[in-house]
């Protein structure tokens, strides 16, 4: 990706989002009772316009002015000093994508697998993709951890969590009966 594009990409996307949101705000319909009363679109429109202007300013600044001449909040100096001391860790795109996939995968799978099985699988697999190459430890933590969470949430805190479908539902019901949840 060209450096210039990379420099303005986040604010460019936010600017596009502002344009889209302004269009969506223009479609808000309400009966304001006539007269000059401001409607329900006024507040979001004002914010969107301000956000769009900020994005446009930042893009212009990065393209045409010195990008380093940035204004920071009052604790900015000390915080950046601390960050500089720690040093920036290396970015790993593969791990990030795996993390996002696992998070969404868990959300999709839990209604079918039920909380116990879905969580045990997630707890066992996630550390592997996070770089912990100890499958036995992860699996044991996953199964025991998931069981502990079922007891904690469903037995102690009385939170109703997904049971799953088909055989997984049967397993969840059996497990709940075993820990005394009817």
């Amino acid at each position: 990706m060209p450096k210039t594009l990379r420099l303005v990409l986040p604010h460019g996307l936010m600017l596009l989002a502002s344009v889209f949101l302004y269009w969506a705000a223009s479609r808000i319909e309400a009966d304001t009772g006539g007269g000059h009363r401001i409607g329900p679109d006024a507040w979001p429109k004002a914010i969107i316009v301000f956000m769009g202007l900020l994005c446009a300013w930042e893009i212009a600044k990065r393209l045409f002015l010195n990008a380093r001449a940035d204004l920071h909040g009052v604790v900015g100096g000390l915080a950046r000093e601390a960050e500089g001391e720690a040093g920036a860790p290396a970015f790993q795109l593969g791990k990030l994508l795996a993390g996002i996939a696992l998070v969404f995968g868990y959300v999709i799978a839990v209604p079918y697998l039920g909380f116990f099985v879905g969580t045990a699988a997630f707890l066992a697999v996630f550390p592997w993709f996070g770089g912990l190459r100890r499958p036995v430890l992860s699996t044991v933590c996953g199964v025991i951890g998931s069981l502990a969470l079922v007891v904690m949430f469903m037995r102690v805190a009385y939170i109703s969590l997904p049971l799953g479908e088909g055989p997984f539902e049967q397993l969840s019901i059996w497990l709940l009966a075993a820990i005394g949840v009817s």
Partner: protein
Amino acid sequence: MEVLANLATGFGHLFTPVNFLVLWVGLVLGMLVAVLPGLTLVMGVVLALPFTYKMGVSPALILLTAMYVSGTYGGAITAILFRIPGEPMDVPLLWDGYEMTRRGEAALALGWSLVAALFGGLVSAVVMVLLSKPVAGLALAFSTPEFFAIVFFGLASVVTLSGSSLVNSLISLCLGLLIATVGVDSIYGAERFTFGEPFLQDGIEFLLVMVGAYGIGEVLTRMSTGFAGEAGEAGGGAARFRTAFPTLAQMLGMKATFARGTATGIVVGVVPGAGATVSAFVAYGLESQYGKNRDKLGKGSAEGIVAAKSAATASVGGALVPLLAMGIPGSGATAIILAAFLLHGIQPGPQVFVSSPDLVYTVFATVFLGVVGMCILGFFAIRPLCKVLEAPEAIVSAFVVVFCFVGAFAARNNLSDLYVISAFGVLGYLFERFDFPIAPLVLGTILGPLAETNFMTTMVSFDNDWTIFFRRPLSGGILFLAFAGLAWPLVRATLKRVRAAREAHARAA
């Protein structure tokens, strides 16, 4: 006298067996989340929230408040002993606390940290008790322009005090305010930004934004840079796990530092959106400018520890004042305490002092006892707390994700909410990656409805005359302060540039 009687009632509630047990559970959990790699104080309080759904309101608030109090201390231990800041607020402790450890004075550094936390925490608790009711009384006299001005001031201060770019902070805030407008609006009943999705008609709960951006977002950020390995150097010598207190004479010699740090913590804590981290940094900055031994700061000076730690703990009492008196959270953790109030059908604000004084004073008593309990734990539990560091971050993070999902799901039993928090998790990661601060986004989502309602009501009541906000003395004064705060980084940068140009000119001459 009435305050003391109410406080005694609060302590009475706290000393019932269940509440007392919950207090200690909260204190231990707060310490753990502050020490555990991959967990922050705000995340910890978020994760504890689902356990409070089925609790009574008193134990729920005691648990979360106790976690908030002790979460401001735990990270100091690992920062001083192992150079691992458990929380961002503990970063200043690396500069002086860890330096003292390298000189073989770890026990004394821990002692200074403990004394500073105790002093800052107790003084701020007293101020909180004395200040809350008068502030609530003042808030009762507010009309909608004043409430709008107060909320605007809070939002502006989040931006002003942020460590990130001012423009990015403002964009983050705008996005938060826009998220708060999703759903059916409260004045006209019009649908906004629902895009035909039924689940968006109820709006997006700020809890989902918070859990997603702080919890899932932080996990993704850490995963993208590689989780920390196991154990590290946390195995350290047993001799390091003890605390040695400074003498009374030493403490009296540093009374100005104690006073400056505590006062800074309380004042910054009261400002909505600031919290313990900003307090610690500002207090450290003040100490480095005005301290008696400012030249020694950053080289293993006890003043650095006292300034940062007393301010961080003092911010707790400060942050609870706007929450309880006006219903405006002063920090990330108090935003979750606000959520706990709302989940139990109680709106914090001036009325709560009339309708539920028992509850308010139970929270106050929790802060007092929490500060003392935190110090007791901090003194006796150093060794087990340090053992916690050996937990692999990848496993801890996996549990964090599960807790986030359960917390989000259990609030409404709605699977769509899980997709929402996952999406906000990705957004939180992107914000972190491109230097957009998350705090303004979250505070914008929380305070947005309050700001809009008061703005719209004022406009309707005063015939769309926006100058009313500036013509009323109180709202005008507050808005002036807010704009002055927003302009300050610009003024400061201009002054710096002028000074640099003058120096360059002088050198050339």
